[in-house]
């Protein structure tokens, strides 16, 4: 694959030392030459976006190292899971450091992965010939969420137990197979020690194997195809040598990430104290205890959790959660097949509509995540009476964020396509400020966007110069 045309790979290598020794056996010259010639495109956008994949991989490597160290002490079992983690963090030298690094690195990995995914989406790097790279990245994103979900239960503490109970319950809403899937996931009717065994097996064997396979494909494709040049160009106007320029920059960034990770680990060993981003061990799980109010899933699942809450118990004669899961499935599927949906990018032409779709998705997720956190509820917490206030405050934050995004896009990036961003903002405004139900507000916003879009298309078809 790395063989350069015309290169005689069977020529004897007379170099001495390790390089010569390796060369005589493994014929590495084509690989070295490939790497020497490999370039990272420098185009019309910020280079920083290219480093996010590497940062994500750095956190994944940290996860593997700290995970293996945790594995040396962790003992899955009803009487040992919690106790072994407690022993590790209190008695084992630097045990606290390993657990805290594992937790922080997990969250930072999801953050960098999300940014990587959105930057890839906005830069249309998914366009041909890199569709499979996008799909494999998308699979890696889902697997990472799986890591987060399965790892959360392993300390077998109260917080994790009830959050997992709530989280796994969602599966029951899958039509027809829901209860069977729930049983498969939990290993029984309820979250019990069998669930821990399953999650443990998933977390340390099944998911890593799948992840290594998919990330192998992802990296192979990136090496084979190189990084995507800016839209409209098949090759970049300029390039940066991968070795040593880009690789050393990558290394510099990884060291900076390690610095940040260590600092966070020492000063905030249990996380920033935000619900859904808190891993203080607390009390041991007791399945006989009733669930306590205010249980939140991890922050990256909050949008789904909040969306489920926004659906009524029944919709169109179907159970609300089922409709919601169907809607989530549709949204995630759209995200997976974007390379084929974005026809303009497919033709290597700038596609402002899909950029706008990405920004609308960010605003959509932002509102739901803020509402899931009960931002604006104050002391009332998650009580029913505080819901309108939460919706209002979260809508105001989302509108403010939306306004900043529009101004920056208009002025800095000279975007002129805001239809879906407008629909997302109209949605939260109608829901939060005009007190319409979330679904009705969403339907009105979509209808308004469709009407405006159709009108613009009509005007454009009548007067192609506009």
């Amino acid at each position, binding site marked *: 694959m790395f063989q350069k045309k015309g290169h005689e790979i069977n020529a004897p290598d007379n170099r001495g030392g390790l390089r010569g020794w390796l060369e005589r056996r493994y014929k590495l010259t084509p690989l070295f030459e490939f790497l020497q010639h490999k370039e990272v495109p420098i185009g019309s956008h910020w280079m920083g976006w290219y480093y996010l994949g590497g940062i994500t991989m750095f956190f994944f490597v940290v996860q593997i190292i700290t995970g293996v160290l945790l594995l040396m002490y962790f003992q899955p079992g009803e009487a040992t899971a919690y106790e072994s983690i407690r022993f590790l963090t209190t008695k084992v030298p630097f045990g606290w450091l390993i657990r805290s690094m594992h937790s922080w690195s997990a969250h930072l990995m999801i953050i960098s992965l999300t940014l990587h995914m959105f930057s890839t989406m906005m830069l249309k790097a998914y366009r041909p010939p890199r569709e499979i790279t996008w799909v494999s990245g998308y699979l890696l994103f889902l697997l990472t969420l799986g890591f987060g979900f399965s790892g959360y239960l392993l300390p077998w503490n109260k917080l994790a137990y009830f959050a997992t109970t709530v989280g796994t319950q969602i599966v029951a809403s899958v039509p027809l197979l829901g209860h069977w899937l729930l049983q498969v996931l939990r290993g029984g009717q309820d979250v019990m020690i069998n669930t821990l065994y399953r999650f443990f097996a998933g977390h340390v064997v099944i998911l890593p194997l799948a992840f290594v396979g998919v990330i192998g494909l992802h990296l192979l494709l990136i090496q084979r195809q190189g990084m995507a040049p800016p839209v409209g160009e098949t090759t970049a106007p300029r390039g940066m040598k991968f070795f040593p320029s880009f690789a050393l920059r990558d*290394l510099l960034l990884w*060291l900076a990430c390690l610095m940040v990770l260590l*600092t966070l680990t*020492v000063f905030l060993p*249990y996380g920033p104290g935000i619900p859904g981003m808190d891993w203080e061990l607390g009390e041991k799980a007791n399945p006989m205890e009733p669930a306590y109010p205010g249980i939140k899933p991890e922050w990256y699942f909050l949008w789904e959790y909040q969306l489920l809450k926004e659906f009524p118990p029944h919709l169109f004669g179907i159970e609300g959660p089922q409709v919601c899961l169907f809607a989530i499935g549709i949204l995630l599927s759209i995200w997976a097949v974007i390379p084929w949906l974005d026809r303009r990018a497919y033709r290597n032409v700038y596609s402002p509509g899909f950029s706008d779709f990405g920004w609308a998705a960010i605003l959509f997720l932002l509102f739901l995540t803020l509402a899931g956190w009960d931002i604006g509820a104050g002391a009332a917490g998650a009580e029913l009476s505080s819901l309108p206030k939460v919706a209002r405050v979260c809508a105001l934050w989302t509108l403010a964020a939306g306004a900043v995004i529009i101004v920056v896009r208009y002025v800095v990036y000279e975007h002129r396509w805001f239809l879906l961003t407008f629909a997302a903002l109209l949605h939260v405004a109608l829901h939060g400020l005009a007190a319409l139900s979330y679904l009705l507000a969403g339907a009105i916003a979509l209808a308004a966007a469709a009407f405006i879009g159709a009108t613009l298309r009509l005007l454009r078809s009548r007067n192609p110069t506009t």
Partner: protein
Amino acid sequence: MKAPALIAATFLICAVANSADQGAVAPVPKLAEMLSAKDTNGNPIVSAEAQTYFNGLNDRLKELLNQAVEKETVSRPEHLAILLSLQLRPQKMEVLLQNNCVLCHSDSANHTPDTLFAPNPEPGASVHMNLKDVVEDVHFRQGLSCAGCHGGDPAADLGHNHVKEWPEKDRQKNRAWVVAFCARCHSDPVKMHDYNPSLPTDQLAKFKTSPHGHLLLDAHDDRAPSCVSCHGVHGIRAAKDPQSKVYARNVPETCGACHANETTMAGFKRADGSPLPTTQLAEYRNSVHGKALLGRGDLGAPACNTCHGNHAASPPGVAQVSKSCSLCHSANAGLFDGSKHKQAFDQHNWPECGQCHGNHTIAKTNDAMLGSGQGQLCGDCHRQFAQKNPDCIRTADYFHQTVTRMDEAKNHFAADSERLAAKGLDVEPISNQLTELGDALKKSRTYIHSFARNSFQQVAAPGEESIRKADELVKHARAEYRYRQSGLAVSIGIIGLLMLALYLKLRQLEK
């Protein structure tokens, strides 16, 4: 061969089931008519809930209801609706349906408000009785109803020849007869055994020894309480029933009905001739006991009767105060009994516990009561009565300083522990020491009642040791945190240097 046999068996089972169904008691036509009757607006008079309740009645009760309808003790759908809406359990319903008194008096068609048992009377409405009180009465449940006290035969034909048993003459003026009337059963062990074998039968004997008893039976004072003053007349409930007037949480109000009433209590005097106060209820409500019982609902906290007694209620004498307190506070009382103070208090004729803690107004104790300063209990008393013994003052100061130090250390280390835990440090050893310190502090506060330095020192010593250990552990945890910070600084320094080297290399390469 098997199939015909199965079919035959199925038919047989169906036939038996059908015949069993036919054997169920059906409502007589008049009762059926009442059950389906509608008012002028076309709405059913007997509600759906009441209908469901009727359908769930057993055959015996349905039969009794049929009989009541045929005898016309239940003659109107409105009356039937009232009886069914009570939703009584079967045993009570059986008593009710055989009781012509209640059946007749619960029908508003037969009675004017002054003799009616109304089911849900408006507050302040003039009705003879609340029907719900009648059926909830503990006596009614045991099968004793109106006739149990009023006489007559409730199952016999209707009539009003039922007042023979009442000492009618002057019964409102002199209520001394009430206690004897109740005692006919309640002081008879044989009779009471049939109803409630665990209920004592000495109430009257005790009552006679009490000031209440003397006032009622000897002085014939019409303000004196009798059984009904505390237990009620109709609607009497068992003492363990939260709605009973003598349920622990209701006792203070029941006693206060008289004892907090200045008019009622006017003229009553204590043994020393001073007027009997009426502030006890207000004082009790603000006391540590009142807050526990009335505020938190802690039934372990004492009500009036815990110290004063029930039927033999009397103010405890000076000698008895500590005995009342020691029923719960046995450790403190035991230590006090062996202390020097016991003798001194007896010489002064002081009521032991009450002298320092008060009686109805007992407040939560605090460490400031100790010590020799002005306004401190020990100091104030010793300056007045024991000036010749400076060692006592030194002991009081020692007590005060020790418990104060332990208390402050406990709070201080708890706050430290919380801060260190938030920093991710292992605070379990500190928590263990805090638990031991808390135990030692509790014991030390108790051993103050020994008023002996040696005894106190023995229980305070583990607390002092816990303070020392906790201090060491906190220092160790802080050192560990500093070590982590230093480690981080060194790591960042090394990483920073590495980054700098990389950066320089990169610049060199790109030149």
